[in-house]
């Protein structure tokens, strides 16, 4: 069994870990001013909304060229958001989104 790429996996892990760890490990980080804590509380909604928007509206090809994308993912994500706003829960929302996409594709609509 080949082990040639184990070194690459290790190097990729080594460059990934600092971004996950450093902000949490900086000494005295818990004594941040209130304004900084307010900012950090807003990072969650901003970054999750950004991830959702990028995964829905931007496609990347094999050469990492980007393109704006409109497809069945849009109504699927909107259905999920509406269900969650109506307090139906994340599981109901994500299952409904998957069903919308699967049915549309099976019907040849997407």
């Amino acid at each position, binding site marked *: 069994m*080949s082990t040639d790429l184990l070194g690459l996996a290790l190097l990729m892990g080594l460059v990934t870990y600092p971004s996950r760890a450093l902000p949490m*490990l900086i000494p005295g980080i818990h004594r941040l001013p209130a304004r900084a804590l307010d900012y950090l509380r807003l990072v969650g*909604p901003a970054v999750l*909304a950004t991830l*959702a928007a990028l995964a829905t509206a931007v496609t990347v090809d094999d050469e990492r060229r980007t393109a704006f994308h409109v497809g069945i993912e849009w109504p699927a994500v909107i259905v999920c*958001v509406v269900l969650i706003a109506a307090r139906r829960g994340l599981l109901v929302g994500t299952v409904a*989104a998957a069903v919308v*996409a*699967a049915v549309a594709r099976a019907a040849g609509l997407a």
Partner: protein
Amino acid sequence: MLERDAVRASRRRLVIDSLGIIASGWGFGLVYGLAARGAGFSPLEAGAMSAVVFAGAAQFAAVGYVLGGFSWLGVVVLTAFVNARHALYSAAFVPYVADKPLPYRAVLAHFLTDEAFALSLAHFRRLGRADMWGFWWAAIVADFIPWNLATLAGVIVGGQIPDPNIYGLDVIFPAAMAGLAVGLVTGRRELVAAISGATIGVAVGLAWDPAAGVLAGGLIGPLLGLVTAPGPGERGEEAAR
């Protein structure tokens, strides 16, 4: 409601919320394993990448880079760029984990993925404090185990895997992220941060790269939220802090 009941109810919701993420992790872990096999990775190499890197987007990109004959240096630099968004998650976790011992935070950091961050932050926000049981559930049970087992299944079983897009599994990730973002929007500032972050992220993602888009949206969105006048309910909350 008693504190214990609130914790129990929030954990129950976390477990239910994570089921879609688990299904998505299985679907795309299988596809990753299959792609890695196609690029010539052995099960040990593909499995090591899922365990050590544990970042789906970077791993899919790495398979393409290896297949395209990129140098290791190029792959490593691009991995650092694609995964730089995790610094935002780590920073956002600071208010919740600052009191934990340093070695504990050092271990926790390895498991801080998109999904673990999103699920556990929603759980922490419901409780108004950290509950590490929730983090470990989201990180290990909902993310690490499905992703790693599915990687091994994909690289070993190979071409017998159906395309997960047929079942709509590809929309679970954006749907879950959008849904969890909605759950975190409790006021005007969060709403502005979310909408402006998403808009900026897409613009930068299109103009440059989606990884840069996540960083731009995640950094600038909160700034715009911060300069927004809080709603009436938020003023009291802010004054009370």
